[in-house]
């Protein structure tokens, strides 16, 4: 009961101020049949900090963490080294235990961070403006489709076959209930992306084309022609970036004409965390800002004329607009945005470029080494830090078998696209700065053994 400061003496004194004889008297409005007279059965009583730590530690040790194995998983979540100062700073109580900054006079810390974050994200993605974060990349992607519908007043969205299949699933789930029509095919195992097919598919009913960059197979294509085709038809281009580190090396979608760029920001500052919390990035052209979902921080002045920051354009939001809001989002990923912003500040352009170059260099080395393994073909002409290997057998089996040997080999396309046998031999391999030459060699040897 270490988190409960009231003593029994306190409780008695307070009841007498209230004029109640007992705690039960405060629960009189609960219908008798629903009032529990004792603690719920079948659950353990309170435990010491030591006992809880021991239990959780035991469960933690039952996992093979990325740092304990040669590790090559990506496909929407990337393992990067996060400087220790990031985690130190986000744990400062004034950041960690603060609420949403609705009282700006005593929330300038959070607000200035959000303003800086928005600027960093906008610049990274090559857009005019960005919001203060969404839940994750997949929900940001869905929100972008909805925003495109509101802007174009059209409801047919064309999703690239290179879009992360989980993002497609999320969009499909939501679309069932909003009447959006979503077109999507599974990818084919070719070096070329589906840009041409996407362009061919655009028509006057198209609200947007959604394309991932680099795509789920790691391929990179110039989005400019796609943006032009979309704009010509009155549609928007939505670009999805699941690995923002790539934009330390690659032209960003905003500079290629994308109207809305969303992304998963987990790579910078946040860590793997078994899938969450993550960080949805959301940026767009200036002209669409009032159709944007999510929280926005803006600059203003206080009564003494000093620069300050506030949440703004909240007339778009649910707590003001209720059912007319641009989104139902309330809580976002504030602390993850802080982590992203700190990490990005530590990197700066110089560090981000170095990080991207290191990722790319190691990935090229790994791709070339792995392509030498008999039974392995490298699919990609182009890639950043992730590429697809085509194996001579179902990659799901290979991944499971290598896991048993302590090698975390990559993500099988069979797991990502279970309904599409045609891509089952594909293995998506990510290589970040946390990989060392020995890891690559271990993976190559293990693949060789497995495919022999």
């Amino acid at each position, binding site marked *: 009961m270490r*988190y409960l400061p009231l003593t029994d003496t306190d*409780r008695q004194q307070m009841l007498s101020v209230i004029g109640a004889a007992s705690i039960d008297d405060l*629960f009189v409005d609960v219908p008798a049949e629903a009032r529990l007279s004792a603690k719920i059965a079948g*659950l353990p009583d*309170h435990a010491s900090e030591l006992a809880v730590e021991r*239990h*959780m530690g035991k*469960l*933690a*040790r039952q*996992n093979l*963490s990325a*740092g*304990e194995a040669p590790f090559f998983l990506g496909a*929407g979540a990337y393992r990067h080294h996060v*400087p220790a100062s990031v985690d130190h*700073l*986000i*744990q*400062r*109580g004034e*950041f960690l*235990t603060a609420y949403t900054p609705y*009282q700006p006079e005593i*929330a*300038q*810390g959070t607000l*200035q961070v959000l*303003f800086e974050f928005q600027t960093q994200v906008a*610049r990274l993605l090559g857009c005019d403006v960005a919001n203060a974060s969404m839940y*994750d990349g997949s929900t940001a992607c869905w929100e972008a489709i909805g925003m495109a519908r509101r802007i174009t007043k059209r409801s047919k969205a064309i999703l690239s076959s290179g879009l992360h*299949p989980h993002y497609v*699933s*999320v969009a499909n*789930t939501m679309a*069932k209930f909003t*009447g959006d029509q979503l077109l999507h095919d599974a990818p084919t195992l070719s070096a070329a992306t589906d840009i041409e097919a996407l362009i061919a598919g655009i028509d006057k009913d198209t609200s947007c084309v959604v394309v991932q960059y680099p795509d789920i197979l790691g391929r990179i294509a110039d989005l400019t022609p796609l943006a032009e085709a979309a704009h010509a038809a009155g549609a928007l281009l939505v670009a999805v970036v699941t690995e923002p580190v790539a934009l330390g090396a690659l032209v960003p979608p905003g500079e290629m004409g994308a109207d809305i760029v969303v992304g998963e920001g987990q790579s910078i500052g946040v860590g793997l*965390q078994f899938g*969450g*919390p993550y960080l949805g990035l959301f940026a767009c052209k200036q002209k669409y*800002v009032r159709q944007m979902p999510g929280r926005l921080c803006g600059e203003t002045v*206080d009564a003494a004329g000093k620069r300050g920051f506030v949440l*703004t354009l*909240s007339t778009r939001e*649910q*707590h003001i607009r*209720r059912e007319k809001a641009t989104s*139902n*989002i309330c*809580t976002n990923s*504030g*602390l993850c945005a802080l982590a992203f912003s700190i990490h990005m500040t*530590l*990197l700066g*352009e110089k560090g981000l470029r170095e*990080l991207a170059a290191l990722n*790319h*260099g190691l990935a*090229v080395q790994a791709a070339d080494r792995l392509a030498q393994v008999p039974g392995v073909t490298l699919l990609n002409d182009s890639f950043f830090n992730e590429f697809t290997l085509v194996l001579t057998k179902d990659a799901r089996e290979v991944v499971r078998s290598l896991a048993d040997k302590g090698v975390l080999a990559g993500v099988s396309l069979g797991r990502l696209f279970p309904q599409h046998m045609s891509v089952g031999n594909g293995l998506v391999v990510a290589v970040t*700065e946390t990989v060392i030459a020995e890891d690559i060699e271990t993976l190559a040897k293990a693949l060789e053994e497995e495919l022999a």
Partner: protein
Amino acid sequence: LEEALIFEIGSTDTTGVDFAPAPKVASRLGGLERRAIGLPGLSEQETVRHYTRLSRQNYAIDLGLFPLGSCTMKHNPRLNEKVARMPGFADLHPLSPQSTVQGALAVIHELAEWLVTLTGMHSVAMSPKAGAHGELCGLLAIRAALEARGDARSVVLVPESAHGTNPATAAFCGYKVEDIPATPEGRVDLAALTARLGPDVAAVMITNPNTCGLFERDLKTISDAVHAAGAFVYCDGANFNAIVGRVRPGDLGVDAMHINLHKTFSTPHGGGGPGSGPVVLSEALAPYAPLPFVEKQGDTFVLIEEESAQDHHAGTFGRMVAFHGQMGMFTRALAYIMSHGADGLRQVAEDAVLNANYILRSLDDVLDAPFGGSGPCMHEALFSDKGLAEGFTTLDIAKGLIDEGFHPMTMYFPLVVHGAMLVEPTETESKAALDQFIMALRSLAQRAKAGDEALKGAPYHAPRRRLDETLAARKPVLTWEAPALAQAAE
């Protein structure tokens, strides 16, 4: 208390990190090499200082009482932060082979069992990322259930006093939203509600305890009526803190309820998230729960996703997020729940309600308590601006609290009360802290009633005076631009 922006002090050729040199390789970037980005860097020391100084401009639970109604700002134990950072949890990839993440799946499963047992429900969807996302999950399950029986319906009923997320979510799911009025004593109008039920109503969304701080006495009756009309009951669980361990929503006929792990189970708010909003479901809705989820099969934990769901989970309405929810919040919440246990969680509700009633009854002589006669409040005390001097508002009292060293209470919500002040102390405040807060609020109420003009300028002792929100919205400046550019643009 001026801290320059990183764009004003950093430069694009400064960095606070070192990397091993990149291997020299021919680039395979498809000819799309990037030019200037415009991201400033700081050295590590400058970075630490910038964020340390900025943090000191925030108020936080670690600094004092945070009486935000409906937001449940309680103590965030550091044990939970430590646990969440164990490499066995923090350094796991969501798509790791399941044989390598059995402990992580066990965490999700254990937490799910606690949530199901504490709420008396059938099952739980763990993946929603926050409360509003949980609402979406609940309504999607309801919609899927209705469609499964070929009975598409179009209306969702929402009380006037609901959180804004409720109507927003319902609208987002394509429903028509209709208000249900409240009785003068601050509860849902049972008669009006039952009168409105009909074959077009898909669901009723109710918050219990409601946003006036009262327990909805008639919820079981409402549920029965709703079910009889073929609809479902969605309960907004934002206020579960008031009843955990004392009432099980499942006993009240609820079909779906989200649980804000960042409220009831103390995962830190972090300046606006991340949260986590698992949704407990009744047996009727369980078949429609989203993918993925964890199932225990013998001694093995299995993550059911698209690959494995087809055969025995065909009704799922689909996937709500890329992966499987807020693992970092699950570990924290589980540590918190285990620390309290069945006995402690019951005590949580009791102390939360005791603290709120103590505040209500310690202040109802100086502040109007519109529902003070409606019985004990639950975990939050509601006041109105009635009786303040001409020209003095709830806002003035709120800003005055800042100068007294407290965060303001929730203002102007719920909408059903004029100038509402909603105070939720939570169970983690000591009596001494409550007494200080009561003294401060009492003094402010007296000043506002007496028409103390100085109050209208508050706060005076914060990092900033009142900020011009109109200016911010009229001419939005959402990103930083170099002064020359900014000028040129004017």
